[in-house]
């Protein structure tokens, strides 16, 4: 009886939301894009995703056992890192590649900083840029949809090489019928997942919408043969922009806390992505843009602190 009387400081409102609940909801919201990836690229996509998840979870478990830290593998954040990393890989990569990438993501991207909540960069993107810099051959060989032995370039890569795009209809871009990474191609499935997160209130509009809008605007103004002639819809629908804007730029840990800060973050990501796509050496810039803005997050947080009521 006496144990039921808790003495604690305010606030006293109790909510069932917790880190693990949010994380597992994000995992569920990523499932549609995963199913779409398997349908488009075949079973390889599933094995790659499972390998990355297994490697990420076991890395965290082993690290925490070795360093005698609290075991946190069940909170789902390692699962998300694994899934997001796999979604950023082409479907034709050898199976050791997601495993190496997931181990690197977890150790260098998260665990050396002290685990969830301490990491300055999005761990999955750390893993992806590590793999991209280390094994560019595998990371830029994309399988063609629905026939798993033929390779094809991504629409953005074709554009970068200056070849004629051969009109890919917007509808094909939207449902994912083109070369690309496992989880980024099917915009429809990604939007279903994003809708789940919006309905649950786990992500706000600030980062994704400013990010996508800024990229589109910048491409529209500067990305065409003349000013105001860019194909903004093509750029929004291709590459990893939707996946990045909804699932990776909204990482709680490595992004600004306040609404004003998140808008700055989103605009920065958008400008960087567009600049890399138009003038940079890579066809795609989403992961670098998000990582660069992750690095700027502490400064954004410092200058967008909300005024506490009554203070100057």
């Amino acid at each position: 009886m006496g144990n039921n009387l808790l003495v604690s400081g305010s606030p006293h409102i109790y909510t069932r939301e917790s880190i693990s609940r949010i994380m597992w909801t994000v995992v569920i919201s990523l499932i549609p894009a995963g199913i779409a990836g398997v349908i488009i690229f075949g079973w390889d996509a599933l094995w790659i995703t499972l390998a990355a998840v297994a490697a990420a979870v076991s890395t965290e478990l082993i690290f925490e056992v070795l360093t005698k830290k609290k075991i946190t593998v069940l909170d789902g954040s390692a699962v998300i890192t694994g899934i997001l990393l796999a979604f950023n890989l082409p479907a034709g990569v050898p199976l050791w590649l997601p495993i190496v990438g997931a181990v690197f993501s977890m150790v260098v991207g998260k665990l050396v900083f002290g685990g969830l909540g301490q990491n300055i960069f999005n761990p999955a993107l750390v893993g992806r840029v590590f793999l991209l810099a280390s094994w560019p051959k595998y990371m830029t060989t994309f399988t063609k949809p629905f026939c798993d032995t033929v390779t094809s370039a991504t629409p953005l890569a074709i554009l970068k090489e200056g070849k004629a795009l051969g009109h890919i209809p917007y509808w094909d871009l939207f449902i994912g019928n083109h070369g690309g990474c496992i989880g980024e191609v099917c915009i429809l499935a990604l939007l279903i997942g994003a809708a789940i997160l919006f309905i649950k209130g786990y992500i706000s509009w600030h980062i994704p919408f400013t990010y996508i809008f800024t990229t589109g605007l910048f491409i529209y103004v500067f990305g065409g043969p003349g000013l105001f002639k860019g194909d903004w819809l093509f750029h929004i629908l291709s590459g990893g922009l939707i996946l990045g804007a909804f699932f990776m730029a909204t990482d709680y840990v490595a992004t600004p806390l306040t609404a004003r800060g998140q808008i700055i973050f989103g605009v920065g990501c958008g400008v960087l992505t567009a600049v890399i796509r138009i003038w940079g050496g890579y066809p795609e810039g989403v992961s670098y843009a998000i990582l660069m803005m992750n690095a700027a997050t502490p400064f954004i947080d410092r200058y967008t602190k909300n005024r506490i009521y009554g203070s100057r």
Partner: protein
Amino acid sequence: MKSLVHEFTKGIIRENPTFVLVLGLCPTLAVSVSVVNGIGMGIAATFVLLGSSMIVSLVKNFIPNKIRIPCFIVIIATFVTITELCMKAYSPVLDRALGIYVPLIVVNCIVLGRAEAFACKNNLAKSFLDGLGMGVGFTLALVLISAIREFLGSGQILGHTLIKGFEPPFIFGMPSGALLVIGLLLGFFNLIKNKKT
């Protein structure tokens, strides 16, 4: 005698210039692509350290305090020029591999740091051993970093392939790989140090 041995050994682990004092990182980042480069750079820096430490400790009483830094730099630059010309004459391949980083030993903070912090306050024997210890510590650190980077970045050690079928991650041959390796090693050495205390 004991203190002389101490002056030599402190530079190798307890006050290792790279991992504990965190000095001279620019050449470390730049040349640690292969073990040969690491050894070459280490020996060149050790020679300059030895020479400048000895000369500085000999002339310390004649140098006015206000212009001591320029004087140190002139002494260091002399030894760097000797090193550079010798390297050009006897080992042009290494000279080409190290490039601008040999003349840049002039501004290597280990060399100036030892002249300022140690050699201008101590006698010849102590300064000699201090310079030698620091040089050996710097060389060992360079060899460690460059061995890790050469193995991971190209699958080789000293030009010999170790494991067949190993596809090396290129990133360790690039500047970002150097930052990663040095950062992780620094963390590792701090971990050991914190465990001990």
